């Protein structure tokens, strides 16, 4: 088996430094290391090689110093390494980077498998894997949690989705991105280290690769960071560089790619439509929504209109339910080429973060991941895409020079709005074609209770302030209501109200959900160490002086045993309301 692993050199966690003398970001002295999730990608390759034989090539695009991480991969047991480096590649965005990596992989004979980490901790987009797959025209499987070769020589792949998991069998070749849970990376041995020092690493530059010059580096990057600002100090943003002016086309229209699960349109799709409506108020003409599935329940189309769709296109074909993104992308592309929207948006779910990069690469356009805010630039009518960067300390505003302008939206940052009076047009297309996915087996398993604390998007935690095990169940009820995972302070674990694997903090788990809700937790330093990078923090505490309020975005001062039931009740009522 011939395996290619793509790895990246990143700054060590928390190492973005401010020079104490000059007060500016100090890039020169930041220690660099291998992207942690890439170690899991390497481990998968090594295990596959041990079990089935074969050869592993590691590639990295980056500065000369990235040679070090390639040597680390060689020390672990990879056979060969290539470094793609040169000034011409500098400032590449994910589109440009993927096109280069795909170019380097494309010239290799008979690659069976390309593996990448789920995302890099610095850029945090997760777009490289799907975009590489699109350039290579290969099937993509993201968020892979299990992978092996069956006795018949098929790949067995299991990937995680919000709703559970998908397991597929397919013939090589394909591209996978792996999650941390897939394996435990090994450490290199002394002999491995010694051998790696002797090896020659092939250096490639733009001239040695079959790539379009106009697709690499800053010039080849469709997205531009136009502004970064510190989240703490509002409006004190520093302008990095201004936009290159691009002629706008007339048709200003936004297309939302929606998701359907078991015949129902997902809530995250309604949230994305709400973004469309926000843009509509800023001058975007129409909000289009594209849904695809094998089956849709009665009333779902009308409901989608009432959430704000002006034009709703529904493609009916079972291939959408198979999550074969390399196939569904083709169908969506046809529609996009026909509609020619200037903006395409989707929720940053496991589907959105896989399908959108795949589409972006095919459309030769840029994609901004995980946006939390949008605006329209009044000067040129272009979409301003705002997302957290560098661990959330900074907000970056990004513009796309090419069309369409694409972005994924962080789930649960926008509120879905129901407009019972809203009118829209529905276009229904039943497509009878039996599309070939290449999947030899495809099984979707529903499992909504498997929420891993560290992966959960919402975490509800309780502490000693809840007083007893009975009150602690309020936290569990709230979590169930929100589809959240349950966390706890060490004090709550010590009381035996919940088991140790739920402990958040220095000696428990480190979590970084989009929303962290905690009740009766004082906010001891060791607890904060495990949750302070969360997107938003909601704290319920009786003591207005509690340390937790210093990190909270929303603080509720009061008795948790009174407040929690009110919230749970409110959620229950809202759910009923929405159903009507």
């Amino acid at each position: 088996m011939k395996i290619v692993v793509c790895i990246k050199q990143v700054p060590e966690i928390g190492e973005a430094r401010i020079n104490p003398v000059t007060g500016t970001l100090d890039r020169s002295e930041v220690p660099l290391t291998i992207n942690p999730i890439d170690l899991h990608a390497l481990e998968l390759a090594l295990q596959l090689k041990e079990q089935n034989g074969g050869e592993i090539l590691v590639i990295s695009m980056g500065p000369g110093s990235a040679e070090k991480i390639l040597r680390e991969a060689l020390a672990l047991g990879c056979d060969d390494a290539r470094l793609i480096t040169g000034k011409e590649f500098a400032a590449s965005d994910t589109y440009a980077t993927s096109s280069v990596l795909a170019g380097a992989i494309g010239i290799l004979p008979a690659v069976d498998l390309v593996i990448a980490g789920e995302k890099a901790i610095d850029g945090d987009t997760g777009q490289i894997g799907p975009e590489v797959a699109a350039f290579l025209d290969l099937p993509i499987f993201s968020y892979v949690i299990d992978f092996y070769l069956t006795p018949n020589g098929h790949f067995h792949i299991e990937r995680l989705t919000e709703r559970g998991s998908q397991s597929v069998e397919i013939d090589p070749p394909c591209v996978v991105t792996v999650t941390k849970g897939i394996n435990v990376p090994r450490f290199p041995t002394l002999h491995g280290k010694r051998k790696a020092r002797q090896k020659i690493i092939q250096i490639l530059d733009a001239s040695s690769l079959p790539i379009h010059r106009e697709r690499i580096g800053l010039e080849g990057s469709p997205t531009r960071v136009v502004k970064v600002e510190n989240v703490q100090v509002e409006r004190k943003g520093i302008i990095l560089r201004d936009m290159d002016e691009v002629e706008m086309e007339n048709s200003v229209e936004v297309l939302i790619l929606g998701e359907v699960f078991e015949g129902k349109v997902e809530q995250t799709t309604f949230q994305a439509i709400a973004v469309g409506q926000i843009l509509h108020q800023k001058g975007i003409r129409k909000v289009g929504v594209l849904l695809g599935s094998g089956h849709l329940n009665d009333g779902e189309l009308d409901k989608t209109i009432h959430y704000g769709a002006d034009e709703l296109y529904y493609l009916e074909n079972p291939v959408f339910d198979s999550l074969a993104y390399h196939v569904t992308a083709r169908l969506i592309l046809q529609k996009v080429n026909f509609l020619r929207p200037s903006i395409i948006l989707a929720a940053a779910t496991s589907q959105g973060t896989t399908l959108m990069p795949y589409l972006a690469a095919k459309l030769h356009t840029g994609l901004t991941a995980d946006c939390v805010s949008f605006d329209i630039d009044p000067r040129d009518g272009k979409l301003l895409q705002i997302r957290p960067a560098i661990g959330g300390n900074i907000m970056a505003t990004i513009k796309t020079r090419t069309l369409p302008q694409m972005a994924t939206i962080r789930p649960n940052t926008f509120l879905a709005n129901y407009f019972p009076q809203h009118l829209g047009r529905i276009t229904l297309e039943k497509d009878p074609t039996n599309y070939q996915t290449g999947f030899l087996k495809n099984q979707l398993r529903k499992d909504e209770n498997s929420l891993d604390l560290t992966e959960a998007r919402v975490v509800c935690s309780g502490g000693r302030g809840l007083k007893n095990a009975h009150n602690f169940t309020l936290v569990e009820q709230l979590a169930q209501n929100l589809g959240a995972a349950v966390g706890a302070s060490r004090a709550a674990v010590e009381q035996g109200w919940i088991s140790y694997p739920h402990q958040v903090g220095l000696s428990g788990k480190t979590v970084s959900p989009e929303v962290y809700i905690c009740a009766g937790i004082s906010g001891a330093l060791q607890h904060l160490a495990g949750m302070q990078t969360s997107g938003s923090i909601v704290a319920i505490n009786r003591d207005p002086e509690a340390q937790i309020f210093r990190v909270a975005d929303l603080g509720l001062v009061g008795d948790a045993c009174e407040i929690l039931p009110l919230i749970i009740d409110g959620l229950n009522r809202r759910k009923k309301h929405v159903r009507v």
Partner: protein
Amino acid sequence: MSEFKKISSQDITFFRSVVGEQGVTTEPEALKNYSRDETPDPTLRRFPEVVIKPHETTEIQAIMHYCSQNTIAVTPRGAGSGLSGGAIPARGGVVLSLERMNRILEVDHENLMVVVEPGVITNEINRKLKPYHLFYAGYPMSLETCQIGGNIAENAGGGKAVKYGVTGTYVRGVEFVTASGELLKFGGKIFKDVSSYDIVHLLVGSEGTLGIVTRIYLKVLPLPRARAVLLAPFDDPAPALHLPVTILSEMGMTPASIEYMNHLSLEYGYRFSNHTYPFPEASCHILLEIDGQEEEVVYREYDCLGERLFQEGAKEVFVADNAVAIEDIWRIRRAIPEALHLALPQEINEDISVPVASIPELVTFVEHLGQEFHLISPIYGHLGDGNLHITLAGSQNDQWEEKEPLIHECFYSKVASLGGVLSGEHGVGFKRRKYLPYFYHPEEINLLRRLKAAFDPQGILNPDKVLPD
């Protein structure tokens, strides 16, 4: 035993007038957090009557003056991560929590010194120093939790003591408030000082019984640019335990750390951290850390050390030289103490320190002791400086109460006969004070008492600590 005055509402009014409403707590629920430190033994819990959180040194002076006038017991407290019961208010009274005195006052990079208040979390110092390419080397393993004042009071050591020494090595000056409320200063931003008795290093390790440290002058070092960690599993622990002699004396090399973890201690660590080392069935694992300014030099050192580990019987030698892998290896080692405290709250948990060449003999002795008394004994810790953490827990805990004093006696007699001491880094505090007579003659303990009396004639500062009854 001296008598202390109970806290009255009048006292509370006075304390509030000094530090403000918010700085004084009497609510029982809040006091609970101050009734313990990280010592697992549930019998070592005492409630304070009031917790005071001063902001300024002058406030501490006023409080101490008042408490000495009224004979009120005062227990200074850092982060409460101590393992000797040092911060537990054995006689109630005031807990003086230094958590709000948490300013880093100065980074003097020309003189390679930092000036800090006691409540600074130790890791904060290193975070602050990093952009200057400097670091404070005296930190313990609990660096993300503990406060520098607590470190000084316990003369904490850490994983890197083999090369860098312990907290005291870096303390060049202290300011402290005496029991009667005076503010004194000894030392400063200086490297050498024989201009008086070494009061600085008398305060270091005094466990809050001699004075309340309010300002600290710490020496700092250039931050090593390159690091590597070696991990080696062994089937035979004998050559592994002999490694300090092999490496430090025979090879003449000085790694930053030489850590030892026996199979049993790792089993608890694995369960707690949900990760395992390769070769989990090995009888022990050795962890070596090497650091330096140049990658090549570090490479040559670990290459040479790794080769030697093979000669000594290592089954394999793993190398981590990037931050992710280094952390992956240390994380399991760091999980061991908490894992043990959780799993074995009734254990005998030791912090003895012996001459490094005597370690194999001591460990063999512990094995015999274990057989005799049916004990399980996880052993881990700082092999390179002779400071192993030995846990002795009853496997049949029916007669534990009877056996425990006997086990202690056998164990301490052995440690003393090897020229060892009662505690290497955690301190005597509340927990070990009754064992002092195993290690010191009455005259020696008498000198300690006279010293204490010279600083604190009424005995109001951290009573019932260090010295036996």
